[in-house]
């Protein structure tokens, strides 16, 4: 099973992981990495590397980070660039993370990334626009 590392500014990654487990139950082979004020890219890169040593990375690693170009992304890119079976997806949200957890059991890294990206995008809905389209079908 592909390993997942969630990396974000602040404690968001830890809480996102907890939130997704509320919905789909406990997950394995996953770590949440936080990035705090005052830390350097080197600190973070080192923490990612330590984290990876605790995971089963044999089937690949997916970093799921918050912000394209942010430190959690930049540090992950330093790690992932050296490895073929590692990639990064940005803009983490709960639909994306849940999809990654569910799909990684049966799919390749490329497929997990694609599916997660689609779920992340499709999870964005506007309430009032959606609501006006709802039609009830009588039974």
């Amino acid at each position, binding site marked *: 099973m592909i390993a997942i590392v969630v990396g974000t500014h602040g404690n968001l990654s830890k809480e996102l992981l907890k939130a997704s487990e*509320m*919905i*789909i*139950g406990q997950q394995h082979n996953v770590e949440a990495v936080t990035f705090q004020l005052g830390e350097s890219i080197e600190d973070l890169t080192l923490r990612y590397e330590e984290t990876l040593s605790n995971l089963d990375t044999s089937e690949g690693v997916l970093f799921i980070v918050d912000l394209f170009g942010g430190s959690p992304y930049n540090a992950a890119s330093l790690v992932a660039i050296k490895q073929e079976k590692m990639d990064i997806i940005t803009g983490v949200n709960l639909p994306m993370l849940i999809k990654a957890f569910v799909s990684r059991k049966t799919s390749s890294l490329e497929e997990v990334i694609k599916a997660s990206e689609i779920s992340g995008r499709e999870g964005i809905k506007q309430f009032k626009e959606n*609501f006006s389209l709802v039609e*009830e*079908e009588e*039974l």
Partner: protein
Amino acid sequence: MEIALCRIDDRLIHGQIVTMWSKECSCNRILVVNDEVYNDTIRKTLLIQIAPPGIKAHVLSIEKALEAYNNPNYNDFKALLLVTNPSDVLKLIEGGLNIKTVNIGGMSFKEGKKQITPAVYVDEKDIEALKKLHERGIELELRRVSTDIKVDMMTKI
């Protein structure tokens, strides 16, 4: 109509249902059965709106649900049935609904209810209905998400 899953969950359609249970039981319909919600147009519309892609959701009263259950026009329904409490399940079964298992997922805290698990609270009325369901030979399994291990509700009350 086939009942793919009957679940007690007073949040009705929510994250666990949309992302997991609806797929797990491969239903093609979600039937929310609750007299109160049936008569509340806003809640009804809000629930229908969040049905996962490809699955239609309906909100029915207990009476309407039994009518639909017996209507041959709906023979191809594979339904995920959501109810908020065990008394409503009992009413459905007394009305002819044929199920062997009830999944108990979430019953939220209200004044006077005692805790069974972090997600399930019951009062005397609930316990009485659960006992009646048990006497009818119906399996009552506690599981918040489908990957949890089933726990027999009767060992908890």
